[in-house]
């Protein structure tokens, strides 16, 4: 009996202790996607605005459902939109401030709940699990290849439905205000032209250049062509004389794409359905970089981000995302450098610069028509110039609409490198948004390193193109 009593005690303890210990306040039920059994909103227009004539114009009642068009009868009012994002620190703090304002003032009574869910990889895991279980948010961030994965599983809404809607969509003027490449990037030819993502912000692949050092070496202006770039890099390398000084090579796929764009090519086929890494522009770009490396005018730095090398005058050029600008500023200050430095376009053989722009999109998961429409209205609000201007100040990201810069004149004056990068946005183009691009990126890095170690450029790029297209075919038969 004693043993049984003891066993009972242990079992009770095992069950009760966790519950007692876990007597924290009940977590606020996280509003996720509205259940499919929600009151059918399609009936509401008939009761709320029965006398109105069918029209594509917004109804006088704030945020009332449209009476015609593809979204007729879909009522976004009172919806809760959960937004899974990756923003931390100051960005998250700003969101925590501005979202309550939106919730209090938006005429549709939409409640936006922004939830930090870790980095892009964590969010990808959550989305995959969410699609399998039906627990999806109203909005989620992710890269373009993520969009393809989710769409393949039937987990995303086509934003074209919303962007083109006569009542809830964007006007032609508003569409024209977006930088074209930004808006095009979310359109997936592999999914019949569906718009699976919308840009809330962007970064751009740039060259960081030490102007003061360049002037000391006899180059009054930053380079615009590959030849000028080579001349300056080699002069800086000769000045240091220890293998450093020139350009720090970047083996990332975004850098390879950026060089290809600058040499007048593309890594995406014309129909947007496959890869072409063996085009003449990529071959020329790789040949240029290999020669630079062989001549001792470029080197690899593998111990982390290159900004400390740049600040310490161990590289006159580095390459990377414009989101690194604050880190360059910090490093220049840390070493007490008084050098003037700038952000310049990738040296190009094209008449105008062609810049690689990138960044995560927001997507609308497939939930209910009401939640999806409410999510679109949140996107519209977030990409409005006023909100974008504030977001750019906080995040350091670039705005997606040209008119936003008019609201940022003071910020542009205070941040010259940021302003230089903003000036490059009209020249933007983008990397493949294909489903396999995450895997292909690794293959590109390997190919780049193989070329720099002496592999035949043409053969390596041919093999890379074949491998990339095989990966694409494997994931998207």
């Amino acid at each position: 009996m004693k043993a049984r009593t003891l066993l009972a005690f242990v079992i009770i303890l095992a069950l009760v202790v966790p519950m007692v210990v876990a007597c924290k306040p009940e977590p606020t039920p996280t509003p996720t996607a509205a259940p499919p059994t929600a009151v059918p909103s399609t009936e509401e227009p008939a009761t709320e605005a029965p006398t109105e004539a069918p029209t594509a114009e917004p109804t006088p009642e704030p945020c009332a459902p449209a009476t015609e068009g593809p979204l007729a009868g879909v009522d976004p009012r009172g919806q809760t939109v959960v937004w899974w994002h990756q923003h931390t620190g100051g960005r998250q703090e700003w969101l925590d401030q501005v979202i309550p304002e939106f919730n209090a003032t938006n005429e549709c009574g939409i409640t936006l709940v922004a939830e930090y869910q870790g980095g892009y990889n964590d969010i990808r895991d959550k989305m995959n699990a969410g699609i399998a279980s039906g627990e999806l948010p109203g909005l989620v961030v992710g890269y373009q290849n993520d969009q393809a994965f989710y769409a393949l599983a039937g987990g995303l809404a086509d934003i074209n439905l919303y962007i083109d809607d006569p009542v809830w969509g964007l006007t032609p003027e508003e569409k024209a205000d977006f930088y074209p490449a930004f808006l095009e990037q979310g359109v997936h030819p592999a999914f019949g032209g569906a718009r699976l993502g919308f840009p809330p912000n962007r970064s751009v692949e740039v060259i960081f250049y030490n102007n003061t050092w360049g002037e000391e070496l006899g180059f009054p202006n930053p380079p615009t062509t590959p030849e000028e770039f080579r001349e300056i890099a080699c002069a800086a390398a000769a000045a240091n004389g220890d293998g450093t000084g020139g350009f720090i090579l970047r083996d990332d796929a975004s850098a390879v794409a950026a060089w290809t764009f600058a040499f007048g090519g593309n890594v995406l086929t014309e129909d947007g359905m496959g890869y072409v890494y063996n085009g003449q522009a990529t071959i020329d770009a790789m040949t240029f970089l290999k020669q630079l490396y062989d001549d001792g005018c470029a080197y690899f730095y593998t111990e982390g981000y290159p900004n400390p090398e740049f600040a310490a005058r161990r590289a006159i050029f580095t390459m990377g995302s414009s989101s690194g600008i604050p880190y360059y500023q910090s490093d220049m200050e840390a070493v007490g450098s008084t050098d003037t430095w700038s952000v310049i376009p990738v040296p190009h053989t094209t008449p105008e610069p062609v810049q690689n722009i990138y960044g995560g999109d927001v997507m609308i998961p497939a939930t209910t028509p009401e939640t999806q429409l409410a999510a679109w209205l949140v996107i519209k609000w977030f990409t409005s110039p006023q909100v974008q201007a504030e977001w750019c100040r906080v995040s350091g990201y670039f705005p997606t609409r040209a008119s936003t810069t008019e609201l940022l004149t003071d910020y542009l004056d205070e941040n010259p490198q940021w302003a230089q990068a903003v000036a490059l946005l009209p020249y933007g183009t983008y990397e493949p948004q294909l489903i396999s691009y995450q895997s292909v990126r690794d293959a590109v890095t390997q190919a780049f390193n193989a070329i720099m170690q002496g592999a035949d450029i043409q053969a390596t790029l041919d093999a890379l193109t074949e491998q990339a297209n095989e990966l694409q075919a494997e994931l998207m038969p």
Partner: protein
Amino acid sequence: MAKQAPVSRRNRRLIRPWVVFSYVILSAGTIVAILPFLFMISTSLMTLGEATGHTLLPRVPQWNNYVEAWKNANFSEFFVNSVILAVITVVGQVVFCTLAAYAFACIEFPAKNLLFTLLLATLMLPESVVWVPNFITVTWLGRIGPIPWVNNWPALTVPFMASAFSIFLLRQFFSQIPQDLWDAARIDGAGHIRYLFQVVLPLSRAALMTLVIFAFVGSWNALAWPMLVTNSPEWRPISAGLMSFLDEAGAHVHLQMAGSVITILPILLVYFITQKQFTEGIAFTGLKG
């Protein structure tokens, strides 16, 4: 002189080349093991500029990094969460794994070996493979149960209350207990439950402590699963706090390291408390890290 001779012989034995070689190897291993910790502590006291540069030691120790890390990452809330989750997980593992291990070690039942083999086979599954099925399970259980599981403590603890590794560890230990003790207990009228609680468990403190420390460390360090099953910070563990020092442009390495030092302190504490039993447990069960 006659008394000193044995000492001299012992000394000669101590300085044999292989002993020196062993010490050199062990010292090198110690250095390799301890360097990351020293690097972490050193970086935690640096400025961001020093942390991202080539500096080995901070010019001026930035003790404020610890305060900043604690505040910025909301560690106070995450810390409490981690303690609660670790306690629930450890208690659950001790209860369920003990019972399962005892059954596998001391009770004969049909297909015992097959079941044990299947259990061991689950150790071969990569953790990420079971995420989606487990997520679907906890979502479903939350829908049919009285409390939500996702974004709540059950999803963070229940899936880890039955660990194949812990069952294996205890089963190995229980199997070594002499059969004579069971025979004697039977003569005294004991059944399995009394034998388990009055004989087996008192003899298995070392193995149980090993289980406790593994379960505690596993729960404390968990990140991917907690991020998957929580949507808000209310139940996220301390490891989630460390993520707040990462953004797309890079990491605030100095704060991340300060946060890491804070994070590992409880693990070190648990290890120091259970060190003796833990070492014995590892030795008895023949397990190595």
